[in-house]
């Protein structure tokens, strides 16, 4: 137990250093900073376009009101901020590390290889507009839906977001791990990215089977829908239990898959 605590503590300290290095990098290349910000603002507006489109119709879509849809899209934007901030850069760079053999350097470090390869970079720029817009939309939707923003609701929502974050890490890392075999993964990345867009709308617009697959088998719908369903009190017992079990299942799965993939890694530089 003590060794586990020590390992976690060490990785946490290293993660703070990673964050610091990433921030220094962003401050150094300010042209990149503005370019990224411009890009993200345009993407953000295209996500808000969905709210505009639904709001103007004033229709409850399959029992989901426009205000609830704003809550869903707000959560989707918050989750986009988390994904782009914590994982996206690392996941995109993984195939590069495999192709160029830079993964060799990480293997020699006295740290978990998966940790260093998938969490080394923290993006401080892309999440900013998304976090501001996402939180604003969620708070606004809560007010309109008369959901009290009390400690219990806030804590519960944060816990569901944490659960979704674990799922994001696992589900979107798996396609990148395939690059241990395919080496190039541009198409895989693009398809995985497009899968992310399935969260743009509440899963109630899809049929029952798609919903089941999207929550239990390839849990893409899990990411945005379950935290939002918690807030509007539509989270049934099965989903509530799954919110606790799913992160454990999928994080274990990704860990096993990672170890299996690393065993097949042939260094590009040797």
């Amino acid at each position: 137990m003590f060794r586990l605590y020590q390992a976690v503590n060490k990785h946490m300290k290293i993660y703070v250093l990673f964050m610091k290095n990433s921030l220094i990098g962003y401050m150094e290349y300010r042209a990149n900073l503005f370019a990224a910000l411009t890009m993200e603002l345009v993407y953000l507006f295209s996500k808000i376009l969905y709210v505009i489109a639904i709001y103007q119709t004033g229709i409850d879509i399959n029992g989901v009101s426009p205000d609830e849809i704003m809550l869903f899209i707000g959560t989707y934007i918050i989750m986009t901020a988390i994904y782009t901030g914590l994982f996206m850069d690392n996941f995109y760079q993984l195939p590069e590390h495999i192709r160029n053999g830079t993964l060799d350097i990480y293997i020699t470090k006295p740290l978990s290889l998966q940790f260093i390869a998938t969490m080394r970079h923290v993006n401080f720029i892309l999440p900013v507009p998304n976090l501001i817009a996402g939180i604003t939309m969620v708070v606004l939707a809560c007010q309109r839906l008369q959901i009290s923003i009390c400690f219990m609701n806030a804590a519960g929502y944060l816990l569901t977001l944490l659960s979704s974050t674990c799922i994001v890490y696992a589900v979107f890392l798996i396609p990148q791990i395939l690059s241990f075999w395919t080496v190039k993964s541009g198409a895989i990345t693009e398809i995985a990215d497009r899968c992310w867009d399935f969260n743009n709308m509440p899963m109630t617009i899809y049929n029952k089977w798609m919903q089941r697959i999207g929550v239990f088998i390839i849990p893409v719908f899990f990411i945005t829908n379950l935290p939002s369903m918690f807030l509007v009190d539509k989270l049934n017992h099965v989903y509530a239990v799954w919110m606790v079990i799913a992160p454990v299942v999928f994080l274990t799965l990704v860990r096993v898959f990672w170890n299996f993939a690393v065993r097949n890694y042939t260094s590009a530089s040797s």
Partner: protein
Amino acid sequence: MSIPKKYFRAFQMGLQSAMEYRADFFLSILSGGFIILIQCFLWTAVFASTQNPVVYGYTLPQMISYSIMAGLVAKMTSTGFEWEIAEDIKNGGLNKFIVQPIGYFYYRICCFLGRKVLQLGILMIISLFALVLCKIYLGFDLQLKRVLIFLPFVVLAMVLNFLIYYCISSLAFVMTEVWGVFIAAGQGVLMLSGGIFPLDIFGEGILKVLSLLPFKYLVFFPANIINGRFYPDEILYGAINQILWIVIMLFVSNACWRSGMKKYVAVGG
């Protein structure tokens, strides 16, 4: 080498490149199909949840056909050469075009059309297939004459989009890191051209403003020709505007490039 032969070779190079990266192209259609799928589910759910048979002026078959055609037309007119131009400007690849008897603009447009010709054919077949399915399952009013009118509009839209991006790519003369602008411009153009939602959702006022810009002629206008939302005189007016925008963008791109070339430092030369 004679001028037509020279540029025909550039056209062939574009065609070869499209054939070489065909897997990439098909996968990009697959990923683009996800967006269309989301839109189709969304609008089906919207129409199923209301008594009103018309939303934003569209019936369900029209909205579904718009969502499909918007996605496909956006793919037909998409560019991608701007990254190569930025690379040429940044790393000095443009040097060889300065010293060789070949015009960079003509070379680029011939390459672009060469790349597009095969993709256009495949996307047209997919479009037709999707529209026939809409007709069978949703009762969409598919008319051959609209399809025939649609074809030249798509080709003009392709040329117009080429010119827009040719202008945008000239930003690489003044910016070292231009990737963010390219991605933002791509998404911005997609939105303003009606590639995500029909422009009608913005309301009458904004639609009027958007009508003063060239973007609506890239996706919204061709996709709605298939939908039969325009009278013949509106189509004629649209065609004149589209051609007018092509002429305007020709002058603008020329001016941008002339000013950019004055700033060009031939790296590696």
